[in-house]
Each structure stands twice: as structure tokens, then as C-alpha cells.
């Protein structure tokens, strides 16, 4: 690989300085805080790994981690399937394509807080219109105020509804970029719908799919507004996710050391999820370098 020249490094320096100032240094500070007992009083007492011991010994943390795991997977894979399906529809035959695409991406323009408030209202057990409709058509209510599984399901549906446009746009753009000659050649060779998708389209959009997957995993790991505004992690903290656990520790209990340990653990979990994809993308990019 070619060595970078000084002038090239100088041109890259501002971006690296920004990363250092806004990502690396705060992360180091959070790392330091996670080893201390600190609140508003200012004095930070070094406690070693005591915060991590407290964190890993707390049953609520593990429940929050488990809730995060299943909500994030439901959200990310739900979005991928839905986004891919919609992108295939939009890239293929679709009447009033522009209008329908505008409708599909509209939820992304809605503020998360407004979206949750709206869903919360229409699914209110006693007076919600959608709740009433679900009962009338025999499905029954989503008991999200009392049943933790229903509450987490609703949070996942809400998150999918809000963020699918992101996945859709990436995949739609990738599908549109696939040269038409490729699909035409496959058809000439006798391939039909599923075979064209499996052997031509999917490999072509795989890099975009991985990028969408990676981004959504990292962002979904921080899921907060949907849970906080629906249930605040209740009832009995059974619907708490890691970001809500962190928020409660920092801003309700004012235990900044423990909150920092939670934040750092979340970051490491995100990194663990992202690592295989990053390695894959890196190898792919520099395979021929």
C-alpha cells in the first residue's frame, strides 16, 4: 500500500481533529468516569471496576440488555424485510411511483415524540380508535400498558414504522443502480423472478444492504424515545432497554459513574455487533489494494 504524504496527512488532519475532539476525548472521559463514584457534588472518587460489578450484578440491567437484544433484532430485520420489499416494488412496476415513494418516506419526516404520542393515543385501551378497531375485527387489543411483551412489540412496530424509510431509500437507490443489462442477460439465460433476485439483484445490492444493516443496528441499539414515551420502562421496569436504564441512572439517580459504565458497555456491545460487518467491508474494499 502507498504511504501517505505529509501534505495528504495535513489535509486529513481537520477531520481527525474533529473526531478526536468530539468522539475520542469524550469517550476517554466517560471511560474515566466509569471508574469513579461521582454525582453533582463534583468530587470523583476512584472506585476501580466497582461500577461494572454493580452493573453486571443488577438483574434490571440484564433484563434491559435482553429487551434491547430482542427489540433491536426485531426492528432491524423487520425493517430490512419491509424496506427491501418496498424497494423491489418501487424499483419494479409501480403506478404513481413518485406519490407512493413520498408517502413511504413520510414517517421519516415525523418527529419521534409526535409519532409516539400519536400511536399512544390511537392505541389507548379505553378510547383509542385503533384499539377499538382491533377489537371490532376480532384481533383483540394490544395490551401495551400492562403486558411487557405487547409493550415491546408496540415499541418495535413503532420503530419500524418510523425508520423503514431510511432502509427503503438506501436499498431503492442501490436497486436503481443495478445495470439493467445484468437482469436482461439473466432473463435471456432463462432465469425467472426469484432466480434473478437471488443471483443478480441481491449480490449487487449486498454492500448497500450491509451498510443499511450496520447503521440501523448501531442506531437501534440506542432505542429510547419509543420506550420512554410509551411506558418509561414500566410496568415494574419490565420493558426497560439499555438507553432507558442509562438515562434513569444518570438523570434520576444522579449516579454518573454507573451511567458511564452503562454507556461504555453499550458502546462495546455496538462495536461487537458492528465488528464482523466492518471487517467484511474492509476486506472487500482493500482486497485489490
Amino acid at each position, binding site marked *: 500500500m502507498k504511504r501517505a504524504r505529509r501534505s495528504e496527512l495535513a489535509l486529513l488532519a481537520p477531520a481527525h481533529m474533529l473526531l478526536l475532539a468530539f468522539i475520542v476525548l469524550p469517550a476517554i472521559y466517560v471511560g474515566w468516569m466509569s471508574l469513579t463514584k461521582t*454525582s*453533582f*457534588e*463534583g468530587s470523583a472518587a476512584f472506585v476501580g471496576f466497582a461500577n461494572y460489578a454493580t452493573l453486571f450484578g443488577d438483574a434490571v440491567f440484564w433484563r434491559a440488555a435482553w429487551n434491547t437484544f430482542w427489540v433491536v433484532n426485531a426492528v432491524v430485520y423487520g425493517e430490512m424485510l419491509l424496506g427491501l420489499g418496498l424497494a423491489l416494488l418501487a424499483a419494479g412496476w409501480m403506478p404513481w411511483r413518485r406519490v407512493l415513494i413520498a408517502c413511504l418516506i413520510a414517517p421519516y419526516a415525523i418527529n419521534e415524540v409526535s409519532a409516539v404520542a400519536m400511536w399512544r393515543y390511537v392505541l*389507548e*385501551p*379505553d*378510547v383509542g380508535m385503533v384499539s377499538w378497531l382491533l377489537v371490532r375485527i376480532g384481533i383483540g387489543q394490544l*395490551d401495551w*400498558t*400492562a403486558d411487557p411483551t405487547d409493550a415491546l412489540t408496540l415499541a418495535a412496530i413503532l420503530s419500524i414504522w418510523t425508520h423503514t424509510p431510511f432502509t427503503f431509500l438506501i436499498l431503492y437507490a442501490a436497486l436503481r443502480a443495478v445495470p439493467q443489462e445484468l437482469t436482461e442477460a439473466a432473463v435471456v439465460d432463462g432465469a425467472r423472478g426469484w432466480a434473478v433476485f437471488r443471483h443478480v439483484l441481491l449480490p449487487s445490492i449486498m454492500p448497500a444492504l450491509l451498510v443499511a444493516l450496520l447503521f440501523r443496528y448501531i442506531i437501534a441499539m440506542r432505542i429510547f424515545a419509543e420506550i420512554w414515551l*410509551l*411506558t*418509561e420502562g*414500566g*410496568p*415494574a*421496569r419490565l420493558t426497560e432497554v439499555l438507553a432507558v436504564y442509562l438515562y*434513569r441512572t444518570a*438523570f*434520576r*439517580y*444522579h449516579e454518573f459513574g454507573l451511567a458511564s459504565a452503562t454507556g461504555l458497555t453499550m458502546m462495546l456491545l455496538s462495536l461487537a455487533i458492528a465488528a464482523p460487518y466492518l471487517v467484511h467491508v474492509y476486506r472487500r474494499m482493500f482486497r485489490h489494494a
Partner: protein
Amino acid sequence: MNTTRRGLMAGATLLAMPAIAQGQKRVTIMSHAVHQRVVTGAKGGDSTAAWREKNNASIEWLTFGVEAVHERVYREAALAQGSVDVAFLLERYGGPHIAPLFEDLGPLMAADPLEAPDEISPSMFAAHTYRGRSIGVPYRHATHGFFWNKALFEERGVSAVPTTFEQIAETAEKMTFTRGDGSRLAGYATSMDDPSGIMDIIRAHGGDFITRDYKYVADAPEAVRAVTLLRDWYRKGVLPRNMMTFKTEEVITTMQQGRAAMTNQPFGRYENYNDPKQSKFPGQFGVAPLPALSTLGGNGLVPAKTSVWAMAIPRNAPDKKLSWSLIKEISSPQNTIRAAVNGNGPVRMSAYDDPRVKELAPYSEAERRVLPTAMLVVPGFEQAARAMDIFMEEVQKAMLGQAEPAAAMKAARGRIEPLLPT
């Protein structure tokens, strides 16, 4: 006419000229919306009007929900420089760890005393004093009374207002029904975001949560009996189905819409419930002291849950003398009366003798009756917020049937005791 950026800027400057010319000061208060309502309400008058004129100042109110106001105030006060002049704090969100964020009011009181400070109960000052540092001037007590909707009682043929807690339980079950049009009515509603709503029910049974000398007692038979009642109520639909998500705001809305028949809330909510602009049942709400179980004896009343809101000065407030002068003004005896007429729980007992308060706040006599025995939810300590969350977690588990009430309260002991001061 073309609208240009330069033209817009010139217009904005012209509009701001009067304030600029007069050098008007701007004071920021961070609080719950109820404080703005009682301080500036039309019924009793604006407590800040004279002060604003005298000091050539305007007041900006930043209002949030109960928990959110504390979170924001603490974050703001932790900064090197701040812009909040006065903050309203509730004692159960405080603790010794937040005291350094606020000005010690002792020296300010010594240099420029409050008017008639002896009228305010020392225990209210004590609720905002940590390790000798007094950080708040008590302004509002939110003491709970028992509310019922007369129109709904009539609809269901209930003529007598309950005078014992046994009767409340009986009436709550009777008031739980579904109308012909499918609309459901819950017999009772209360908040579940912290223990303030259910403490009245536990104390009505003779139980408690944490005593003044920091002993956990919620696993005693009296408290367990109360939690068992809550579980049974929830199972039978006496409590609203979505009550696990109820905060004070949801209770207010539910009562105003006539979706629940009874509740325990601060006496001052009488205004919200009977206001024709806010409520579907104006003038139909009654309020009285919450009765205890008849078997408990005594005066027959629950030691009502009370909370004390106080005015504090963040340590980074830009002009602390100005902040103090506003606090003094708002807490003066005259303004305490004004606020009481606007629906505030007055911290000065003399306000209850005022004829305007007696006339315009018809619940004031009942409120005065319960004040001498009223109790805070928990005594203040550093881990109070965590202890309250654990308690609510275990109560909710019992209500959802995930644990037996006795087992849940015992489990709470194991988790809460290590947090209590020794």
C-alpha cells in the same frame, strides 16, 4: 412590497426598542406549570406584578412535568454559567447530593429576612435542608384529599359520600361498570409513577413505606393488605386498565373526562376538576379528607401524603440578589393568599383565615384539618429516588400477579435496606 432580510432585522429592532430603551431585566423561572398558574392566576391576581414594575423586569416561565423539571434544573445548575434565576424543587427529588448545586439561603435570609418566616412550618424548611444547608423557601404544599365525581355517583345511584376506607372500597367496586354504549368507568384512579398516589392507600390501612428514622416497614401486614387490595382492584377493573402508565397528568385527564369516579390528589386540583374550560363535569367534584379504615381508630383520617415545593436559587444564577428579592416577594403573606385563591396549597397557616381564601377555595378548611398530621412520601436521603423506584417496581409486580404481595414487599426490603442511611 419586497420583504428583505435587512428590512426584517430593522423591524425586529424597532419592536425591541421599548424594552432596550427601558433596560428591562429578564428573569427566568423553571418550574411545573402549576406554579405559573398559582403565581400568576387571574382569580387571586398576579403575585409578581408589583415586583416586575418595581424592578423593571419581565419573567419568563419554563415549565415541565414533575420529573422533567428536576432533571433540567439539576443539569442547568451543574453548568459553569446558568440562566435560571429561580427554580421550584420538590423535596422527594432532592437529597444531600444535589444541595451543592443551589445557593445556601441562610446568609441571604440573615441579611434580608423573609416577611414573617415563623408562619412557615420548620418541618417544611427542614424538607429542603441538607447537612445544614438550606436551599429552598417552601412555597406550595401538595397535600392529598379524597375526590369524587357527584354526577357519576348519581348516575350509579350512590347517595352517600364514603366516610371510612371500607366504604371507599365498597363504592369503588360499585362505581366500576360498563355503560350500554361500551364506555367503561373505573371506580378509582391514582398515579403510579412514584409512590405518592398509593401511599395514601397504604397509610389508610395503617401501613407505611420508610419511617422518619429510615426503617423499611412496607412488608408489615398493614401495608401488604393495602397492596393486596390494589392487586384485587386492578384484576377486577376497579383501577383503569392502563393505570400502570398513569402519572399525575393522566389522573387529572381521566377524572376530568369522567372515566374514573374517585381519586386521591392534592386539594388544589379542585380547581382543575371543577373548571368548565378543562372539565366535562364542572362543579360536580367534591373533596374531603381521605378517611382511614374504621378499625384503626384515632380521628378516622389518613395521615395525608404531602409534598413540599420550594423556591431555590441555582448556584450559577446570574443575579442572586434579584432572585432572592423575587422569592421574598412571591412568598410574602399577601401573595401567599393570592396564590391560595388561585389553587395553591399555602405554606402559611394565616392564609386559611383569609375570607377570600375561605370563599374562593372552598376546600381550604378540609385541607387545614389534615395538615397537622400530613406526612411526606419518604424522608429525604441520597438514594430516595432509587428506593421509590424499587418499591413501585415490586408493587407493580404484585398488581400484575407476578409475585404475591407479601413476597414482593419482602423482596423490596432486601433491595431497599442497603440504600437507607444508617
